């Protein structure tokens, strides 16, 4: 294999894995922002919660990997429902500044809580035996766990897309994103819809958090550290969309990895510059619906 081909494959592989994690975490944010119109800077907290619960289950209770990940998702849902009910509801249709402030406050509180229970260090993550080591594809070695992450991300995307197109729940979401008032007047219970969508988005974020623990380390400040990238995925992908953030996340993951590999002296600078251009030219994002 020539040098540039080797590099390209490496960049694609790691970039796509990174992108899948970003997608899993951010898709819930996209839908809730498009659906409820809330700037939720605390969305990363659900990913963090999922990651912490999953790693705690694996390390302290010996729970096997997949059930632990599901446990993390359940934990995030349990966290999201009262939060939505008590706090987020007040923000619907409200002042943007209030949304920014309240969600920042939630993030700060979550950072302190995580530090208190689990200490300030990143959670050590070890993939399960059946997913460690590497697999060989076309004469090249690829880390097994990351390959799994890519597969999982693609499957979740497919399920979400089908769900949005084929189920009643999906249709209701699409309707409410398009035009909330009309959706209400045709009898859709938007407030119940919001709660379920919020919970689903949080569960997906938790999934992304635990699957992505190798790539985005689980630490107290997780939600703050990666906030900009989550927001980029959502704003470039388009609010209220399921497809848009998928492609935006893959683009972002591959671009970020590519720049780090080929032009490390510029870091994320080009990512931000490209995002700026996209947002100025297409404020609704590349695939924006809302």
């Amino acid at each position: 294999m020539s040098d540039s081909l080797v590099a390209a494959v490496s960049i694609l592989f790691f970039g796509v894995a990174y992108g899948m994690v970003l997608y899993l975490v951010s898709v819930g944010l996209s839908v809730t922002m498009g659906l409820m119109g809330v700037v939720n800077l605390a969305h990363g907290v659900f990913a963090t919660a999922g990651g912490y619960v999953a790693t705690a289950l694996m390390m302290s209770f010996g729970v096997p990997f997949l059930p632990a990940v599901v446990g993390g998702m359940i934990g995030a849902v349990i966290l999201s429902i009262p939060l939505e009910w008590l706090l987020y509801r007040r923000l619907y249709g409200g002042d943007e500044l209030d949304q920014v402030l309240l969600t920042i406050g939630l993030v700060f509180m979550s950072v302190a809580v995580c530090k208190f229970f689990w200490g300030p260090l990143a959670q050590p993550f070890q993939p399960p035996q059946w997913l460690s080591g590497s697999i060989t594809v076309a004469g090249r070695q690829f880390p097994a766990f990351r390959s799994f992450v890519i597969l999982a991300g693609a499957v979740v995307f497919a399920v979400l897309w089908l769900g949005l197109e084929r189920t009643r729940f999906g249709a209701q979401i699409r309707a409410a994103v398009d035009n909330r008032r009309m959706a209400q007047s045709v009898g859709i219970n938007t407030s119940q819809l919001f709660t379920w969508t919020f919970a689903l988005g949080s569960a997906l974020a938790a999934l992304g958090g635990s699957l992505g623990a190798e790539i985005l380390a689980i630490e107290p400040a997780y939600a703050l550290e990666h906030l900009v990238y989550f927001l980029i995925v959502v704003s470039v992908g388009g609010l209220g969309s399921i497809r848009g953030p998928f492609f935006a996340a893959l683009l972002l993951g591959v671009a970020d990895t590519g720049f780090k590999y080929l032009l490390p002296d510029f870091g994320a600078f080009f990512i931000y510059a490209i995002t700026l251009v996209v947002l100025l030219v297409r404020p609704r994002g590349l695939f924006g619906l809302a």
Partner: protein
Amino acid sequence: MSATEATPTAAARVVDAFARRHRLAWGELVPWAVAVAAYFLFPDYLALGSQVLATILFGLSLDLILGYAGIVTLGHAALFGAGAYTAGLLAAHGWGEPLSGLVIAAAVAGLVGLVSGAIVLRTQGLTLLMVTLVVASMLYEAANKAAAITGGADGLSGMNVLPVLGFSFDLYGQTAYWYCLSVLFLCWVIARGIVHSPFGRSLTGIRENERRMHAIGSPVYWRRLTIYSIAAAMAGASGALIAQTTGFVGLDSLDPINRSGAILIMLILGGVGRLYGAFIGVPLYMILQDRFAAIDPVYWYFYIGLVLVLVVVFAPGGAFGLADRLLRRVRRSA
């Protein structure tokens, strides 16, 4: 004034006329009296005091664009950092004179504000928020990667700040305190002038009802850009003050989430759009942080987050909002 009052002296008459023309209320002198008193009452805390004063200036500049022009931004740290690094680089490369360094830093920050504002202010709502965040992140990355110039993650060291007007910056922070206080006072005079001017009132109009302002032919975009650039210069000045008085500039001065977030919180605590919100919110936050962080930094983070949530839900006007409601209740029962 009834005829039974004593005849006011000439001096009192001058003061009265001045106060009336500039609409000065006695309450407006309180922060300055407190600042001067603090110098004599807390001689061991002047280093913290100078930082509080410089940060009040930062909060004041944010109030101008957030409270008066209604621009919600997470990118204010970029302007602070631009001023800080300018002042720092000047001092590290032989230009140690602080006053001229301050002016240059404010000018550079103002320019950054003008250029970035010209781009950013064409957008609205969430896009505006995102774009300010992205621009600030770009500056952060640029400073990080240009480590040969800025020192990168290690920060800019080797600053040699010369005495200001003959007073050298001492270990106790005395010179720094008066320096920051004077600059804050000057900028406050300017900010106050803007707010009470017709230009300032048009900004309030833009914030309250932008469509109508467009309809009456008000040049909305240019007005916002003007206040954005002025506020940028002030933010840069506050960054320069911190750089010059601490002798150091780090990447955290450009941090879009932590630094912009912190100053937003400080302003909210005091109250947005009241001109004095920063004067209350900033000292409250920074002094509490100094005390709490010494005990346990984890608790501080939790409680400030909780306070923020509670403020948004129950007291959106901050300290001023609470004071308003209290006064209304007192007046009603009177």
